[in-house]
């Protein structure tokens, strides 16, 4: 009897050790020492200063009144992670920004979203596109947290089809007059500085868009009702109204008519940084579920000992880890200057959809308790869902990726496929090339006959071209 008791207590000790492993070392392989310190530091800050307010922020649909979270985060140097040091920023890259975004989102999804909108959509756009005078004027207060930043591109009738926006900017003496409405503006109600896109030329389609910097208090600019959202409650979102709002010449961000470049390039980086939001939410789900399955007992044992629960938790964990790896490797790529729209869209597409599933499973693991608002899991699900919609819906993201893939591997590319690096080889797989050959066998013969046997051997992706040749096998020999 004694031995059995000793064994079961040993089991629970091992489970406890596993929990410690999961909580502490789950991401240690992804970062170097400094990045890990950075992450732990932000984690501690968020855990002590933001997490205690998370539930109340959700219930009251507003940020806490007794503490200024913006200022607190500004004091901790969180806003200007990608901004130059001369304006009070840290001068670091997107990897660090993603790390900070993850830990803040882990503490509170709403605060994470508002933080992301402020620090990336507003501050980072100013950093990337602003003139020296504009940066000097707006960045210091935004980075310190004294001012809140926002960005507005969507309209009531222009969401996914954002280029069809109707908000007009008419040229007048000394500047522009803005007329129109903007919708879904995160931080809109409280922002002092906003990046707003409007059409300076309504006939020119995407080439008629210009980006402007709007200040709260400009005559003609006002905010309408704060939206009552399903999740991300407290991250204030509202409609912006422009009625003959005069914007001076010097507030054009970038160049007139070049706003679409500001918008689209900004969207890539926005998607990257925001994709750390659902990562934080997935981690928060594990933070709730793992202790719960040890404490909750049924049939005389902690429910965490049952295989079905262990299966759920395993799925949650692997979703988190794989999404996390994708996010951080794309962040590293962007820091090296390789910004690929497919991966920026892919990263938030994958992370957001998984986060919703992980949050659903978290509710399921808690059973009845998961259905009660006293536990965080309901809020985590409602917060996670937003990321499938904001920053381009999942459908738009799929379109961006699919369209890019199709464009990059058009029929002209068939002969060039052998020169691809190994990673891109997988993308232009056998299926694609074979289908092309079947569709247009004569074309293939033409491109192949231009190559001599020796040139095949000189290509770097040797493994691939061997397989490629084999897949064509007979056809190749027949037609040449």
């Amino acid at each position: 009897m004694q031995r059995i008791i000793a064994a079961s207590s040993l089991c629970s000790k091992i489970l406890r050790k596993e929990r410690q492993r999961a909580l502490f070392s789950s991401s240690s392989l992804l970062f170097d020492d400094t990045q890990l310190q950075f992450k732990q530091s932000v984690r501690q800050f968020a855990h002590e200063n933001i997490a205690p307010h998370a539930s109340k922020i959700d219930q009251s649909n507003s940020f806490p009144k007794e503490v200024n979270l913006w200022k607190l985060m500004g004091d901790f140097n969180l806003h200007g992670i990608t901004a130059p040091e001369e304006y009070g920023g840290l001068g670091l890259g997107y990897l660090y920004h993603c790390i900070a975004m993850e830990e803040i989102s882990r503490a509170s999804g709403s605060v994470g979203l508002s933080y992301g909108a402020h620090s990336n959509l507003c501050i980072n756009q100013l950093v990337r596109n602003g003139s020296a005078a504009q940066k000097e004027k707006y960045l210091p207060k935004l980075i310190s947290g004294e001012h809140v930043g926002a960005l507005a591109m969507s309209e009531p009738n222009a969401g996914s089809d954002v280029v069809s926006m109707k908000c007009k900017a008419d040229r007048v003496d000394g500047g522009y007059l803005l007329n129109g409405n903007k919708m879904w503006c995160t931080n809109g109600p409280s922002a002092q500085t906003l990046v707003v896109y409007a059409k300076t030329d309504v006939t020119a389609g995407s080439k008629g868009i210009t980006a402007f910097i709007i200040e709260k208090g400009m005559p003609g600019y006002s905010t309408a009702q704060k939206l009552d959202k399903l999740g991300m409650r407290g991250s204030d979102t509202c409609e912006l109204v422009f009625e003959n709002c005069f914007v001076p010449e010097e507030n054009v961000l970038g160049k007139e008519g070049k706003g679409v470049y500001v918008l689209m390039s900004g969207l890539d980086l926005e998607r990257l940084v925001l994709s750390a939001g659902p990562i934080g939410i997935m981690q928060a789900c594990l933070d709730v579920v793992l202790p719960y399955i040890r404490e909750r007992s049924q049939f005389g044992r902690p429910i965490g000992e049952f295989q079905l629960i262990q299966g759920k938790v395993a799925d949650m964990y692997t979703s988190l880890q794989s999404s996390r790896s994708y996010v951080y490797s794309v962040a590293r790529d962007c820091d090296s200057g390789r910004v690929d729209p497919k991966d920026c869209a892919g990263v938030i597409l994958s992370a957001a959809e998984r986060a919703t599933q992980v949050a659903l499973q978290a509710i399921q693991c808690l059973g009845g308790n998961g259905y009660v608002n006293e536990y965080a899991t309901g809020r985590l699900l409602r917060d996670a869902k937003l990321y499938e919609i904001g920053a381009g819906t999942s459908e738009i993201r799929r379109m961006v990726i699919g369209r890019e893939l199709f464009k990059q591997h058009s029929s002209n590319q068939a002969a060039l496929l052998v020169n691809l690096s190994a990673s891109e080889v997988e993308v232009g797989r056998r299926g694609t090339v074979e289908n092309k050959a079947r569709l247009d066998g004569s074309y293939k013969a033409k491109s192949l006959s231009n190559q001599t046997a020796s040139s095949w051997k000189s290509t770097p992706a040797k493994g691939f071209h061997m397989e490629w040749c084999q897949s064509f096998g007979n056809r190749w020999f027949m037609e040449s």
Partner: protein
Amino acid sequence: MKIMVAVKRVVDYAVKIRVKPDKSGVETQNVKMSMNPFCEIALEEALKIKESGLAKEVVAVSMGPSNCVDTLRTGLAMGADRAIHVEASRDLVPLTVAKLLKKLVEIENPGLLILGKQAIDDDCNQTGQMIAGLLGWPQGTFASKVVFDKEKQVATVDREVDGGLETLCLDLPAVITTDLRLNQPRYATLPNIMKAKSKPIKKFTLEELNVEIKSDIEVVQVIEPPKRKAGVILSSVDELIDKLKNEAHVI
């Protein structure tokens, strides 16, 4: 004035520890480690003194295997200027640490040595007292308040003792060990974490310092305390006295 702070890398205070199956010690593989909380308080005090202008430099010191550098990096990120790492095998008893510190003090010549009152893994509460004895310096242990007088080169220390608070006046150079209520350690701010990467960590080996690790203490066994048994509800005072006398043997 230079301040030297000795810090130790221990199992994080929030971790639920477990004993190794062979009972030789506590499991430290794959367990979160961090700076001893009392050492954090010591470092915070040193940084406060430096910020008030009374000291020029804060040097953090740690002894042990190569992963001690993690703790030193945390110290540098909090604001220490330099760090020293004494490379040694795992188990160093307080007396050896004190002897090594003595050698470092002779090299660095600090005006003040601050340590945590004890480490949360061994709870020895010996190193501060031993190094003060070896150096012949005055000591203010369990400090809950420290005030400096620069002209008189004197530190007034409030100590938390069993009877209450004792106030001592120490001539510098002195040894101070910190207790819980002395201060609230700061976060390592993000700019400081980035700056810490370029701050120097000097490495010493035991041979260079010419100190022998000879332990007079051998750990025989480490076991968990017996599980707390359920209490018994008694029905009368007589029964209580009977149990105290005949079962617990305390009266």
